[in-house]
């Protein structure tokens, strides 16, 4: 049943796919098929070499590759690597497998990629860069650029890695990826705790006059637990975000309104 194809992929093919991925992926993103056309755009030159121009096979492969697809843009070429390895060896008879592979892997790949590359790394480096920026220091922004260029290198080599390793290698790595994700989220949670204490800069300027005694509330709070107010604020917003039909954008506006009202009442102020 194997309709073997004559064409074998070369280094040049991988370079072409990587160029198309890094410079032009997601440009065709739309609500109907999301990254579908982008997926086909990346593999099209290789499909044309495998099946030949204007063959019914190529048309069939192009139709299949143009279907709905959406995954994490950092790890997407691992799927393309497995895909071209199969199509190169088994030709048109592999299309059903490839389609199943695409649909089966885009979810898990998105989950891993979004956790590590789209949330954790930007959050940790973003916090460092922002922390420096609010003090007028641009070094953090350049650090971020350097990190993302390093990540681009991994995006470049993973295609050939997936092509050579095949499905078993990718699934085998999943255990290690889970351990890595667990360690990274631990660090993430710890760093967020540290950042709350150092970057949420609000205090209570309210001074109570009871008879002849004046009570500076902020001093009282500081003897209990320094940075208590920022900690409570984050806890409260965390709770608000968990309410039904709450979005992050709505929460941001609620915080602005509450801050303006409390500031006008003299209860809340910008820290020194």
């Amino acid at each position, binding site marked *: 049943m194997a309709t073997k194809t004559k064409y074998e992929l070369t280094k040049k093919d991988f370079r072409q796919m990587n160029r198309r991925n890094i410079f*032009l992926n997601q*440009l065709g*993103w739309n609500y*109907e*098929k999301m990254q579908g*056309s982008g997926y086909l*755009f990346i593999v099209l030159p290789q499909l044309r070499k495998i099946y030949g*121009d*204007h063959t019914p096979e190529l048309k069939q492969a192009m139709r299949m590759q*143009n279907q709905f697809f959406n995954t994490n843009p950092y790890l997407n070429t691992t799927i393309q690597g497995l895909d071209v390895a199969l199509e190169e060896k088994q030709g048109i008879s592999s299309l059903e497998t490839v389609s199943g592979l695409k649909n089966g892997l885009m979810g898990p790949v*998105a989950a891993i990629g979004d*956790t590590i590359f*789209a949330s954790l790394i930007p*959050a940790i480096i*973003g*916090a*460092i860069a922002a922390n420096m*920026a*609010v003090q*007028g220091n641009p070094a953090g922004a350049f650090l*971020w*650029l350097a*990190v*993302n*260029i390093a990540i681009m290198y991994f995006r470049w080599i993973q295609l050939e890695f997936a092509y050579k390793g095949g499905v078993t290698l990718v*699934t*085998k790595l999943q255990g290690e990826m*889970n*351990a890595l994700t667990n*360690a990274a989220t*631990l*660090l993430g*949670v*710890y*760093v*967020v*705790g*540290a*950042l*709350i*204490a*150092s970057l949420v*800069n609000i205090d209570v300027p309210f001074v109570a006059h009871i008879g002849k005694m004046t009570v500076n509330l902020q001093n009282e709070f*500081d003897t209990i*637990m*320094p940075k208590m107010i920022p900690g409570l*604020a*984050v806890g409260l*917003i965390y709770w608000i*975000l968990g309410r039904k039909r709450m979005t*992050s*954008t709505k*929460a*941001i506006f609620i*915080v*602005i309104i509450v*801050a303006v*009202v409390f*500031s006008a009442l003299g209860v809340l102020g*910008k820290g020194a």
Partner: protein
Amino acid sequence: MSGNILLWQVIVLTFYSMYQIIDDLTFISSLAQPVWAGLITGAVMGDVTKGLIIGGSLQLTVLGVGTFGGASKIDANSGTILATAFSISSGMNAQTAVAAIGVPVASLMIETDVLGRFTNTYFQHRIDRTIEEENYHAFERNYLYGAIPWALSRGIPVFIALQFGGGLVTEIVKVLDTKMVWLSNGLATAGALLPAVGFAILLRYLPVKKHFAYLILGFTLTALLTTVFTNVQTLGTSMAKVSSSFSNNFTALPMVAISLIGFSFALNAYKRDVGNLPSSTDSQQNGPSQPEQSEQKNTKDEDGEIDGDED
């Protein structure tokens, strides 16, 4: 007319806003992040420090807001461009500009993002047709046309706002500085509180229940040490004034050192988890039995929680 924003500045910033969204889709170089938007807009407008402060504040506000499954996210980059440009041209306080311009612009731009993604459906239909016609060059051309709606979804609103919004912003600043100082102070307080939203959103995405102890550890350690470092710094500065032989070189709390403590815990957790994995020779021998492997792994996970089930 635009306040003090020159035409060349409007054009450069419009092009940057168009470039950044393409960058964020393709190379993902970080140039599309608010800190960079602040740095670049600040450089164009002639006040890099103010740009960095605004970019940094908005960066903290959206920390943890990622795009998942193609949902539109709050466009803090365009918000930073406009907040920085107007803050510098009209002399508005940086923290006030974050809450008064940055956030409203960033959330309004969600709509143009949706419009851009929707417009691209038109090119998708043309792509579908080129496949049936076996016209490979037309396919690639129509795919690349997708960049146009993306770029315009940022370029048009940024251009209109910069070119025609200046007068309005100057008026608002005048009112805020005279009749409505309370509102101006309130917006500055809001600007200082907004990073709290960023951290809360981030915690929603992280398995915070599982690692709660580390949240407390990071928070308490930093809260205590910040107080100590700040007080020592203040003390040192006063001492230097009293005695000239006292040299004051106390620094602020180094966050990298704080992060390293957390890193050591993360490293231990990683080593423990990898040690619990079935050995690689095992998994090679019974290669196809993948489900069995993952089951083994899950039972060994003492916390009984899998990362994937966190929302």
